[in-house]
């Protein structure tokens, strides 16, 4: 009965109800868009950083992360590789040999980070090829080296010159080698740009006297949100006594910290948005109540109980809120799906300075299901709480005055 009355009340004055429902729909839509953008930007930050260098997950010999020397390398056996590649969600496993050596040319010498890479796989992970500014990129088993631009400038070395590398190899052996410079790559981060040397993996294993050994295996995963599950899978699959499996959170604590802090500011913004939309909704509720004073007065004077009337109004609010929330989600979902695949690109000065870093200057959106769920509930509860206003008004209503005022 109440249900029927409430339902009819809503459609009796379509215009008024539609405005109220509209304000709720819009609130859900805006909250979803805001949160989606925030989460999308974090997802993109993680992806950028992972793509920048580390990958989402790395596997090393136990203890390597604390003491990064070639002595802490491991054999990239077929067994490990197949276990890793057979883990669901792992797209590729990129092997690296990474260590320091002195790079020397003519009478200039500098400590440099030597990276033995698989040229094809590395390019898939970090898009190294796109960073080349001169010469040629490495091929599998290449004898040459690709230098970062800052290092090349410091050493005053050019393509075709021969670079001398001296370092310490596996278990204290001497590592020394000559590498013709094949190409030069430029990196946005000064740290990377001033000290990186890339050589082929086989050449690096020869240089450090550690055939078949690698220092790290970086994993490309299909989706960032699967990282935790993949980590758990790998930890059960692999022998964790000899190997350590680390996710991006451990690999890049700075990034995690940045996101953590940014997320707090994001939530503050969200609360401010709630305040604004809450007030907007309250405005429509208040208007609605004011408009219906006469009606309430009449109802009461012909004998409807306050409590029953309140119950009916509450049902009305509940229905309108539900319709609004559902409508809001069903509008935001396709909209955000569209923008998830078509990020909005920025223009102008700031876009240029962002792109200098090899980061796409665009607004990205997230499609995490929890986002829609959370926003829908938040707005629903807000609407229900604000819906107590008309109940309060009815509680204090004096029929005669109400009718006269209206």
């Amino acid at each position, binding site marked *: 009965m109440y249900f029927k009355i409430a339902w009819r009340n809503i459609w009796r004055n379509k215009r008024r109800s539609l405005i109220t429902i509209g304000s709720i729909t819009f609130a859900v839509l805006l909250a979803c868009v*805001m949160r989606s953008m925030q989460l999308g930007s974090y997802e993109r930050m993680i992806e950028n950083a992972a793509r920048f260098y580390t990958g989402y997950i790395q596997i090393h010999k136990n203890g390597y992360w604390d003491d990064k020397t070639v002595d802490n390398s491991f054999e990239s056996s077929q067994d490990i590789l197949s276990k890793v590649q057979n883990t669901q969600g792992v797209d590729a496993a990129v092997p690296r040999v990474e260590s320091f050596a002195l790079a020397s040319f003519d009478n200039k010498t500098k400590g440099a980070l030597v990276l033995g890479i698989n040229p094809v796989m590395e390019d898939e992970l970090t898009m190294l090829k796109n960073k080349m500014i001169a010469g040629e990129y490495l091929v599998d088993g290449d004898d040459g080296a690709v230098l970062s631009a800052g290092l090349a400038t410091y050493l005053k070395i050019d393509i075709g010159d021969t670079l001398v590398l001296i370092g310490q190899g596996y278990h204290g052996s001497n590592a020394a080698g000559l590498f013709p410079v094949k190409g030069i790559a430029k990196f946005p981060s000064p740290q990377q740009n001033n000290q990186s040397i890339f050589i082929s993996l086989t050449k690096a294993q020869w240089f450090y006297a550690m055939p078949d050994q690698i220092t790290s295996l970086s994993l490309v995963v299909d989706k960032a949100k699967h990282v935790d599950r993949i980590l758990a899978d790998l930890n059960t699959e692999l022998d964790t006594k000899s190997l350590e499996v680390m996710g991006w959170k451990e690999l890049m604590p*700075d990034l995690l910290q940045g996101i953590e802090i940014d997320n707090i500011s994001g939530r503050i913004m969200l609360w401010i948005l709630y305040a*604004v939309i809450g007030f907007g909704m309250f405005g*429509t509720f*208040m*208007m609605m109540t004011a408009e219906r004073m006469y009606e309430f007065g009449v109802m009461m004077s012909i004998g409807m109980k306050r409590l029953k009337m309140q119950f009916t109004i509450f049902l009305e609010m509940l229905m309108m809120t539900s319709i609004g929330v559902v409508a809001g989600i069903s509008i935001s979902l396709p909209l955000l799906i569209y923008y998830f695949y078509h990020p909005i690109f920025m223009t102008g000065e*700031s876009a240029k300075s962002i792109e200098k870093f090899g980061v796409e200057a665009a607004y990205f959106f997230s499609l995490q299901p929890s986002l829609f769920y959370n926003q829908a509930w938040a707005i629903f509860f807000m609407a229900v709480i604000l819906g107590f206003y008309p109940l309060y008004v009815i509680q204090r209503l004096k029929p005669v005055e109400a009718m006269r005022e209206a």
Partner: protein
Amino acid sequence: MIVFKIAWRNVWRSKGRSAVVIGSIVVGIWALIVGSGFMNGFMVGYMNEAIRYDISNLQIHHPEFKQDYDINLSIPDGLIKAETIGEWEEVAFVTVRTIVNGMIASPKKASGVQIRGIDKEREASVTFLDSLIVEGAYFEGIKRNPIVIGSKLAENLKAKVRSKVVLTFNDSDGNITSAAFRIVGIVKSSSLSINERNAYVLQNDLNKLLGMGSEIHEIAMLTSEGVVETDIMAKYDALYPDDLIEDWRLIAPEMALMQELYGSMLYVLMLIILTALIFGIVNTMLMAVLERIKELGMLMAVGMNKVRVFTMILIETLSLAIIGSPVGLLISYLTISYYRNVGVDLTNYSEGLEAFGYASILYPFVAQETYVIVTLGVILTAFLGAMYPAWKAVKLRPVEALHKL
């Protein structure tokens, strides 16, 4: 003129309705100002922590020094130059440093470190290093070779205040030199380099060990408020073209990137809030006008023309905005000044912060002009928001309107 009068009376005739519109204007102004204040607070509290405590606004080096930290590449006449800059109006404080990369060792462990020879008073005025001390004191209590290190480094070395550590580095002739220092204080910050990679000693101690007199490697400065860094760079370049002067954007480009990303994000979030505000105002105004269909129909029936009805509704909105804005401004001003003093404690929002050694209190602030821009923006919004309902009102046909309840 009569339209003004009617509009003004209308505003006060229906107090509840006016209160809602005024309220949404107040909330709008408050949301935008407080929102940008919090964002500013975050920018300073989080990103600028590294700039404030570590990098400073500007640094000067020998042009080749940073490539390899060769200690023989000092700034020629560095101290004199620092004096000169210190007298510039645009520069608030200047400090000079000697920098050498080396090793720090405790009986338990050794670690790579950047040793910074500082002038303790001037360093405190530029980087507020003294404010980061969490244990011990800022170069007080230990006479001979005091050293200040970061909390993470201390943890790694398993060293405490008054522990002895040995620094090893190459002196200016290339000879390996070692010297014992005693930890006088431990600093903690969200910046990784301060926590883990830096060690601060007194410049005199370090220069004596390096055998390099009063030469310095780095001049760091803090600009006066509102000064553009590039202006100082141009001024310095004109005077001493042989040195390399860089602002924090050049020194830490990733931070500049963060700022750009952050700024662009902030811009969009504000836009979303503004949209919500417009929608709220349009909604309320729409209801307010539609509620008065009968009344407006009556006015039109007794001969008020459409232009006047339209103007009347706009004037009503404008009056409401003019009443609402000072209230909104006052509330935002009070909110901001309150939190500016007290700070916003974010400990409850994220347990993560404390673990990172991050001061989880942020201090929001807004520039003067923000108040003006936001107020004008919100009034304009209200005005535009009233356009649609006013238009609807004009299109009413008096007879039909009177018929409706």
